């Protein structure tokens, strides 16, 4: 068990918590937040691997994390906008109600 293992387990647990939130909450906002947490867990992995990589001065992992954060921000904005749009249509942010994709 090295420090890297610890970091990875931290990340895995955070990921699972996020997944749990996404799976077990019905509020669209919280589902979205769960997804954000999963993305954050992935970022933790990037940083951890970068920190313990043979030549960290490249900074590649950190760069990737930065871009990932930027994309996540965009995703959050669009996601929340979608939720507001759904709310406009259905007066509810319960994802169970948004089932018009039903086949």
């Amino acid at each position, binding site marked *: 068990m090295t420090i890297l293992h610890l970091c990875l387990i931290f990340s895995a647990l955070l990921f699972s918590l996020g*997944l749990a939130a*996404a*799976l077990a909450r019905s509020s669209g906002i919280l*589902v979205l937040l769960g997804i954000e947490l999963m993305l954050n867990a992935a970022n933790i992995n990037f940083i951890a691997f970068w920190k313990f990589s043979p030549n960290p001065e490249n900074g590649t992992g950190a760069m990737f994390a930065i871009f990932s954060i930027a994309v996540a921000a965009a995703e959050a904005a669009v996601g929340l906008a979608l939720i507001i749009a759904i709310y406009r249509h259905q007066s509810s942010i319960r*994802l*169970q109600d948004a*089932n018009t*994709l*039903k*086949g």
Partner: protein
Amino acid sequence: MPSSIDILWFIPALPLLAAFIGAISTQRMRSVASGSALSAMAVSFGLSCIALKDALAAPGVHQVNNFSWVSVGTFNLQLGFLLDPLTAFMLVMVTFVGFLIFLFSTGYMKGDENYAKFFCYLSLFAAAMLGILVSNSLLLTFICWEVVGLASYLLIGFWFFKPEAAAAAKKAFITTRIGDLGFLIGLIWLHSISGTQLFYNNGEGFLETINLVEATAPALFAISAIGILLFCGAIGKSGQFPLHVWLPDAMEGPTPVSALIHAATMVAAGVFLMARVFPLLEFGSALTVVAYIGAITALLGAVIAVAQNDIKRILAFSTVSQLGYMMLAIGVGVWEAAIFHLLTHAFFKALLFLGAGSVIHAAHHEQDIRALGGLAPRMKITFATFSIGMMALAGVPFLFSGFWSKEAILHGAHTWSVSHIPFYIGLVAVVLTAFYMTRLMANVFFGKPRSHAVEHAHENNWVMTLPLTLLAICAILLGFLGTPAFPWLQAKLLGKDLSGALEFGKIFEGPGLMITSIVLVALGLGIGWAIYGFRKRERFGDADPLEKRFPGLWSALEHRLYFDELYAATILKTNSLLASFSDWLDRWIVDGAVQLVSKLGTLLGFINRDIDEQCLNAGFNETAEEIRGIGNTYSKAQSGDVHGYLRVMAWGFVAIVILVSIALNI
């Protein structure tokens, strides 16, 4: 005591101040407005007389007073004032005629609800007109030129609630602006090649340096082109062919306006400008163009005037014709004769218009000569003065000013080396002028009244008759300033010294010419009286004797040779098409392109759908049926429940990890 050049700017500034007072005067302060306008003109007249005295003391000297207007980087624009005999004579004429017309207006416009505004506009006009005269800079001339146009616009449209007046005002402004654009380009071109647009600047003005220019082909071309472009401005303002169409319509304005602006002063501005830049015109070949345009206009105006029935329109076309004469004079090189004619014309035409105004006012705004008649005994002063004006215009020999000035022009045209065509055209116009003026007199003052209002017409009060009398006196006396025997005016204008003695012999130099023109005038008067004098019109509806004889020609003339219709069908139509095209282009093509891009995405979607429908459905319809059956079964899994989907993914992930680790035996 300051010299006149230093106080010259007061002459336009005073009326400008009066215009400002008029603008802020309410209807209750009407007398303030008219009083300030009148007194400004009176003072300006006094100053002009002083200026004239100074200028005559040193003819041939151009006193200037220049100052910088815009200066930025290496770019510099100067304006300035100029005093020489040409300016001074014009100043005295404009202020004097202007004052009389202002005086006349106080009577004529008495009952109008916008009385104060009327004097505001009149003063504005006078200020701008005087500005043109004292300007020593083509740019300042242009500025005042446009302001004159504005004042004319405002005054033509003075009765703006009449749709015809509003339309006439717009027509006048836009028609003259077409010419003014030529003027503007000419001015800019001149400034860009010579670096200055001052007339005189102690040897550096462009009129002074023009003689130093080497006569190479490009220089000749450029200077001729500039001359013609400047002439475009004059064409517009002075109602020359082909932009003369606005002038007759401008008679929708009040009669004093027609007298002041559209007979005596503004329309003469074009002639004045041409005289001012004469050295420039002389250098290139622009003069020939000026001569022919002038000749055509002189004939055209006279011909059309024959068949008009509105008293003011007859006078308007006569103005067009006389302005053509002046341009002709400039074109053939005798600009001093043009100015002489300009001065005499200003007086007798103002007299005629005010006389017409007096008639109209007395006849309760009846303007149709067919409805007038028999006014001679009822309005004796008007009749007498109007007759003097008419004879001056027709060129009745010896006593009347018009004779001498017209004679000077014909003499100049006769000696023109290029061609005699303008001269012959001038002679024809002499006959026609005498003819249509006789027709006018016979119809208006003789015979019997042909409408109710006319029967009760009576002479107007002194405010209106005094200007008539003064103008009539001038219309006679002014001619003696420039007789061939003692061409004092011409000599002063040209800056020459006069030998001092009267030379009566010169009157009869080239007697053939003078006798010819006397005969022609007599011919015109005779024919006119023969047709209209002996058998007078009985009723309003009677056809004109000439109309019976030449109905086709008459109708064409009555419609002013269809110029308006022609322009409507060509220029206005083109313009309107261009506008429609621009609008269409903007609405559909440019904006359409933008919309197209945004529709492109949608379009791709449609294409995709079509491909789906056409290819897939047609080809695999049967297979699809089968698949659809299977799909129906599976589509039950599509619950629309987002959580469900996510959960399945999680389970799938777990399953894959377990399967892989079992397979790899980890």
